[in-house]
């Protein structure tokens, strides 16, 4: 476990190193800026929460494509309730509403044995419709200013690490060493400092909670009896049943936790990432959360990494589309690396093909000054597809994931 963490750190450092080189060459300073890192974290959190939600559900054997709908419910409730009763109550409401969506999914799939994907898609369609319906009514009754936007929600406080990232503790404003380092614009050192500062400074308390949920999930799923039983429902439900595990209860628990986390993710979007609910705010993040889950091979740490990747892509496209152009250079470098790998294995044809794609990308990089905005917004989705294309075959999904289960093995 430790060595895995170490390896991840190694790779991350290597990545930052490469990015610093690209930054020097292209002048795309936002590649490794404090702002980008901080935005990446902010954008990663909802995806990570959705992914963790998916984790609990799928570990219990229920495929949850309804995460999107549950996030929509959460975002909407967060905005609606949060505007009236403050952000923390809003987040509670988000969790509860997400769970309500999950309860419907649980009843349909666990009790009635409906196909999990079908039920999930139905939840998504219904959630979107339901919030639109009630929003319209709220707007007509004069509570809301528009049918697609809630009133503003008060913001939640932030803090950072002491000494390093300028946190405030008992009225003492600590120094902000990482920012100082980051502003030096030294090669690599400043880049690392900036990324660290972005990840550890000016954090919303909710972000801290969300990040803490990752190790907490590991603890619950792998260290407690509840976690073992929940996972057994996803791996071998009939065996679990034969040992007296209440498989239905475990599946319900997994799906409800899933909805709560997805709802929290939605609430985060409305309350922390923005300051109100807006229609289409979720914009497929539930699905990307699911992709993060696949990318992370059904493990909490992996989910966080996947969410980080998508969050970074998203942050870059939001903050500075010029940087996206610089990312093409990163792709070229990765492709060139693959070419050398292929050549070493003697796969000449594959190497040639990869080389061709690399040259094409390089040509595109040189030919355009700036990517059109509409294409830039596609980055996170494209990243998702590419990552899945590379990673899917190595996945180990829970053995009984997605298979409707009935007590006593009946059909």
């Amino acid at each position, binding site marked *: 476990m430790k060595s895995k963490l170490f390896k991840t750190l190694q790779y991350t450092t290597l990545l930052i190193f490469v990015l610093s080189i690209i930054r020097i060459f292209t002048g795309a300073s936002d590649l490794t800026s404090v702002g980008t890192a901080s935005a990446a974290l902010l954008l990663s959190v909802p995806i990570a929460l959705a992914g963790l939600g998916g984790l609990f559900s799928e570990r219990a054997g229920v495929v949850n494509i309804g995460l999107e709908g549950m996030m929509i419910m959460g975002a909407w409730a967060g905005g609606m309730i949060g505007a009236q009763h403050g952000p923390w109550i809003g987040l509670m409401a988000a969790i509860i509403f997400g769970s309500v969506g999950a309860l419907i999914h649980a009843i349909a799939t666990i009790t009635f044995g409906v196909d999990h994907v079908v039920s999930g898609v139905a939840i998504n369609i*219904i959630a979107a419709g*339901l919030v639109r319906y009630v929003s319209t009514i709220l707007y007509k009754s004069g509570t809301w200013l528009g049918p697609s936007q809630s009133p503003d929600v008060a913001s939640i406080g932030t803090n950072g690490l002491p000494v390093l990232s300028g946190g405030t503790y008992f009225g003492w404003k600590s120094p902000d060493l990482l920012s100082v380092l980051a502003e030096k614009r030294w090669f690599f050192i400043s880049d690392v400092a900036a990324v660290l500062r972005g990840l550890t400074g000016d954090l919303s308390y909710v972000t801290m909670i969300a990040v803490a949920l990752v190790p907490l999930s590991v603890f619950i799923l792998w260290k407690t009896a509840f976690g073992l039983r929940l996972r057994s429902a996803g791996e071998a439900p009939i065996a679990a049943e034969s040992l007296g595990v209440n498989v239905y209860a475990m599946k319900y628990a997994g799906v409800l936790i899933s909805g709560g986390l997805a709802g929290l993710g939605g609430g985060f979007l409305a309350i922390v990432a923005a300051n109100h609910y807006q229609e289409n705010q979720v914009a497929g993040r539930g699905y990307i959360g699911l992709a993060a889950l696949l990318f992370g091979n059904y493990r909490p740490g992996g989910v966080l990494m996947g969410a980080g990747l998508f969050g970074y892509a998203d942050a870059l496209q939001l903050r500075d589309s010029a940087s996206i152009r610089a990312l093409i250079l990163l792709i070229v470098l990765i492709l060139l690396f693959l070419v050398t790998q292929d050549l070493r294995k003697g796969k000449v044809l594959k190497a040639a093909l990869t080389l061709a794609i690399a040259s094409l990308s390089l040509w595109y990089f040189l030919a355009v000054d700036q990517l059109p905005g509409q294409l830039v917004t596609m980055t996170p989705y494209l990243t998702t597809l590419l990552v899945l294309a590379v990673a899917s075959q190595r996945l180990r999904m829970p053995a009984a994931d997605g298979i409707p289960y009935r007590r006593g093995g009946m059909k």
Partner: protein
Amino acid sequence: MKGFKLSGVLLALAAPVAAAVFSIVISSLAVLATNKSPIEAYTTMWEFGTTSGSLMQMFNVATPYYIAAIAIAITFRAGLFNIGVEGQLRLGAIFGAYLGAMFVLPPVVHIIAIMVIAMTIGGLWAAIAGYLKVKRGVSEVISTIMLNSLAGGLSSYLLANHFMDRTTASNNMTTKEIPASGQFPDLMPILNTLGIADQPGGGVYGMLLFAVVLGVIFWFVVNRTRFGFELRATGANPIAARVSGVNSKRMTFIALALSGAVAGLAGLPEVLGDSHSFNMGFRTGVGFTAIAVALLGRNSAVGMAISALLFGFLEVSSRSLELIDIAPETYVIMQGSILLSSVIAYEVLRRYKITLQSKELAKAVSA
């Protein structure tokens, strides 16, 4: 034996009736929650919805739903799930509209050419998901969702940067108008000869007829041909299908590509029958609602036709709710609750049928 057949008919009706009752209860509660009378809401909807103008619009709303639902049903029958119809129909429509406006051909040929373009584009887009599924093991559910978002970005990029008609000084970004030879004729003249008068804002897409033909072809191919059998076998039991000589990977790829090709057509009723171009106002959400239509219609040609018309009716007739100060979005609640309750009802029915058959069998064996 006679008793069994009768109960069979009752059984077939049980699920949709149960679903309808449930959905009426839910929507009534939704209306009641706003202190309005559900009865008044339903009568208003019925009165408005059954006027001939509304019925025409119902068909217009239902036509793309039906085509898109057929596209989805193709994959459902093969045990796959193409959630990417929305993106496929969007790209099919924009390419069909843009390329279709670049040439003039004899009337029927022109329309066919546009259809072929739309099918090709939709099919290619879905084929990406097919390729990823077969070669890289990527779940088509996730990949088609991502492809939807990509299609959205791509189409607005293309419209804004390459396909926009710069000859007209309009604020609305739009492609050039398709010449008359490529416009699908309206059914209104035929309806006039049947004694149905013009309606304000009226007209019925000629592609309604095409949708009917497509439905018949779908039914025949899926239920009565070798290809259809192999498609269904792949869905019913992919391993057994492979053992029986079906190349299941190829079937998976073909099903997704074919589904995308049909989906590519689903944007054309609007493009060829109404706007004669692709613009910013292009109807969104058809591909998602069509999932509900396909599920409700059990992937059968007739069932999907009925559910497409039902959805069209609800959508059009609920516009009248504005008059009595009820949110017209009520129809979304109705559609949603019908969808959820019907998938549950059908599953309960399936289980009940198996139990029933086992009992029959016990009788047959002991007899």
